[in-house]
C-alpha cells in the first residue's frame, strides 16, 4: 500500500495545478488531503467522463491537471476519453484505482489465464471490473504501470516525463487502498 501524502507530494513536485475526479475507497485519503490543500485545486465531477474533458480544457488553457478515477469510472469514460484526451494527444497523467486487483490472482489457477469469456466475467469471487481493466487500457491506447507501494510512488514523476516526451496520456494503476 502507498501513502496518499507521498502521492500528493509527488504531484506537487511535478507542478500539478488541478486534480479532477471522483473518489473511491482506495483514493479517499488522497481526496481528503486534496480537499484541504492550498496548492492544488480539486475539481469534483458527477461522472468520470466529465473529468477527462475538463482536464483537456485545463491543459489547453496552460494548466497541469491530473485525473483520479476508479477503474469502473474509467470504463464509463469511454468515448469522453477517446474524443478528448486521445484525439488531442493530451499529455495527461491518469491515476486509476484498480478495484478488484487483489482477487485477480485467483483467476489464473482455475481459468489458466485472462480469457474474458462470459463464464469468467460472471465468476462470483472475481471482480469483472478488474478483469477488463488492463485489456481495456491496452485497447484504448493508454500505456500504464502499476503502483503497489511507497517504493513505486516515483513512477509518477517518470509518468510526467513520459507524457511530455510522447505527447500522450499515461495511466498509473493503484492496486491497493491509499493510507
Amino acid at each position, binding site marked *: 500500500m502507498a501513502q496518499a501524502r507521498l502521492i500528493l507530494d509527488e504531484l506537487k513536485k511535478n507542478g500539478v495545478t488541478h486534480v479532477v475526479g471522483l473518489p473511491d475507497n482506495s483514493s479517499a485519503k488522497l481526496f481528503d488531503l486534496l480537499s484541504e490543500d492550498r496548492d492544488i485545486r480539486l475539481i469534483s465531477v458527477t461522472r468520470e467522463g466529465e473529468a477527462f*474533458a475538463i482536464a483537456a*480544457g*485545463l491543459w*489547453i488553457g*496552460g494548466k497541469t491537471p491530473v485525473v483520479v478515477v476508479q477503474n469502473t469510472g474509467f470504463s464509463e469514460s469511454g*468515448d469522453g476519453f477517446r*474524443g478528448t484526451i486521445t484525439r*488531442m494527444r493530451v499529455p495527461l497523467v491518469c491515476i486509476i484505482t484498480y478495484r478488484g486487483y487483489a482477487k485477480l490472482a485467483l483467476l489464473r489457477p482455475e481459468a489458466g489465464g485472462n480469457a474474458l469469456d462470459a463464464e469468467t466475467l460472471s465468476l462470483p469471487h472475481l471482480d469483472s471490473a478488474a478483469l477488463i481493466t488492463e485489456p481495456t487500457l491496452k485497447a484504448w491506447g493508454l500505456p500504464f504501470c502499476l503502483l503497489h507501494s511507497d517504493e513505486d510512488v516515483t513512477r509518477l514523476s517518470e509518468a510526467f516525463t513520459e507524457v511530455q516526451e510522447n505527447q500522450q496520456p499515461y495511466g498509473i494503476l493503484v492496486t491497493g487502498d491509499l493510507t
Partner: protein
Amino acid sequence: MLTKDELLEPLARLRADAVIVTCMGVTRPWGKYSKSELDFASADSAMGHTADLALGLALACPQRKVICLNGDGSMLMTLGTLVTAVQAAAPNYILFVVQNDTYEITGNQPVPGAGRIDFPALARGAGFMRVYSFEDSDAYARALPEVLSAEGPVFVAVKVQAGNEGPISRSDRESAPYLRVSLAEWARRLRRALGASAQAT
C-alpha cells in the same frame, strides 16, 4: 425561434477576446463568422462533453470569457455537468444550449423530451444564478451585451430552428479553419493563442 445566423452573428460581433467552443450543428455555421484562433470545435464526438471541455478552459483562463455553444442533445448526455459547473464556480463561464429539439447532425431525429424540456429550469435547479432564455431574435440581440458581461457561471437557453448540417469532417473540404486540421493540432494552436505553451507544457 431564432435562425442560426441570428444566434451567431451578434455573438461574433461582441465576443471580443472570448474563447468560443462550438459543438455539432453550429460548428460549421460559426466558421462563416469567425476565423479566430480562439475558436475551438469540439465536434469529433465525445458523447456530450463539450461543456466540460469549455469548463476546463474557463478554469484555466480566468482572465477571459469562455463561451460554450452546446447542443441540446449533447447537454442531455451530460446533465451532471450543470452541477459540476456551478460547483466549480468559474465566473467567466457562459454555457449556451442551442435548443433545436433534434439530433441535427444525424438527420434531425427528435431528442428525448423534444418540445417539453425546460433547460432553464434544469440550470436553476443545478444552482445557476444567472439564467437567460430566448426565443426571439430581437430580445436576444438586445440582451446579449448583458449576457456576455454578467458574472458567471451563466446559462443561456436559445431556441433555434433546426438546420441541415451533416457530420463534421476534419479535412481540406471544410472552410472553417478549425476544421481543416486535426483536433490535436488545433488544441496546440489554441494553447499558443492563449499563451499557454509558455506557461506549461
